[in-house]
């Protein structure tokens, strides 16, 4: 049997491992299409033959649900993540992110890399956090927005922008950057990856794989990659 999963691109490493294990165990085939959550959601609404959707943002899962594509009440929040401030240079000391942080002074006339602040989840959370800390106004002019978290991370990794705001999972996997601060959990909405079985899904392998995403093996793998598992 074939399971078609539409998953946010940033899940690739972890999910690929889970899929390999699953295929070895069950003999079913799992095809994962990685792309931006927005593209995937639109495709599902456009009739894509997907069985499972794992989104990087609640908004797009809401859209899919509104479109009547979610099977029953299968929607769950699968994973969580933390938002961190990373730096390129090794000699930048760790700091506490609160209302007193002199972020603007730290950045100087360099750039702070973020994902698109009004459309990409990591960017949206980041702006939310900075705003609630009262830092947004002073750094807004220095923000360089990339089209996804990986591109944001790349900017910091290459030193193009000395600082950036990314997920902890990404920061952990990139040796060329180091985390200098973590945003307080209450400074932004919880970062979560909702997952759902879609209407097109059958009862067999689709259901099995959906459940397998939450079994201990999967939980372990997700955790290894820095994700917080919510279920």
């Amino acid at each position, binding site marked *: 049997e074939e399971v078609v999963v539409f998953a946010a691109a940033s899940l*690739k*490493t972890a999910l690929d491992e889970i899929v390999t294990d699953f295929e070895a165990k069950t003999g079913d085939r799992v095809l994962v299409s990685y*792309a931006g959550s927005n593209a995937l959601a639109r495709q599902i609404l456009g*009739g894509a033959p997907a069985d499972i959707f794992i989104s990087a943002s609640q908004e797009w899962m809401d859209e899919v649900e509104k479109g009547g594509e979610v099977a029953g009440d299968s929607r769950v929040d699968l994973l969580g993540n933390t938002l961190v401030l990373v730096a390129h240079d090794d000699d930048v000391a760790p700091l506490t992110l609160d209302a007193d942080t002199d972020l603007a002074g730290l950045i100087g006339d360099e750039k702070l890399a973020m994902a698109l602040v009004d459309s990409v989840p990591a960017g949206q959370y980041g702006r939310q956090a900075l705003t609630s800390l009262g830092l947004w106004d002073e750094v807004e002019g220095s923000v360089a927005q990339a089209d996804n978290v990986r591109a944001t991370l790349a900017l910091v990794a290459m030193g193009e922008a000395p600082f950036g705001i990314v997920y902890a999972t990404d920061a952990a996997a990139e040796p060329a950057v180091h985390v200098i601060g973590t945003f307080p959990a209450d400074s932004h909405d919880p970062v979560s990856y909702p997952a759902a079985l879609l209407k097109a899904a059958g009862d067999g392998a689709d259901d099995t794989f959906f459940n397998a995403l939450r079994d201990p093996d999967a939980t372990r793998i997700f955790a290894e990659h820095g994700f917080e598992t919510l279920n």
Partner: protein
Amino acid sequence: MDWLGPEEWSALRLSLRVSFWATIASLPVALFVAHALARWRFPGHGMLNGLVHLPLVLPPVVTGYLLLVAFGRRGFLGPWLHDWFGIVFSFRWTGAALAAAVMAFPLMVRAIRLSIEAVDPRLEAAAGSLGASRFWVWITVTLPLILPGVLAGAVLAFAKAMGEFGATITFVSNIPGETRTLPTAIYSFLQVPGGEAAAARLVLVAVVLAMGALILSEWLARRIARRIAAR
């Protein structure tokens, strides 16, 4: 080449298939459109010309989105094409080929159009006076004389098709074995930490292939030119 995994091989094969068909299938249409634009004056000339160039002007994501809206399963042309001709584009490799063809179309048309405009109309007149109808003049005189341009257009289109990403992933997603072409595979790798090496490997493959096509076409064009030579 054991340094390419089975998934990568499949992406490579798919990209070749997609680019090949995108090129071949759009060639006759491009020839017709280029001829119409080069030689005929008709109401709607400007419109047609604009339409052809549209995919160049629009961000690829928009083109992909418009394709989804038009040819998706729930699009306004998709179901109709399916019912009447049994043609399905959505989330099939055929859709990837369609996206690539649409994106490459302006390049192909321009190259062919420029060649047609360079053909001496007096030669066509001479052919007409010898009894060749418009159609035959075109087949026996115009076409052979524009061959280098057609070749250039085809290679340009093939190269573009090999690199097409934005429209493809938006229209037909990134499903392994079906719509995961080289560029989408490269994109997926770039989305995960440490995926650069794998991405670079695929980039290399794409470059080698496209260069091969280029060199082949140059060689063919030179042979044609040498034949006509010195004129």
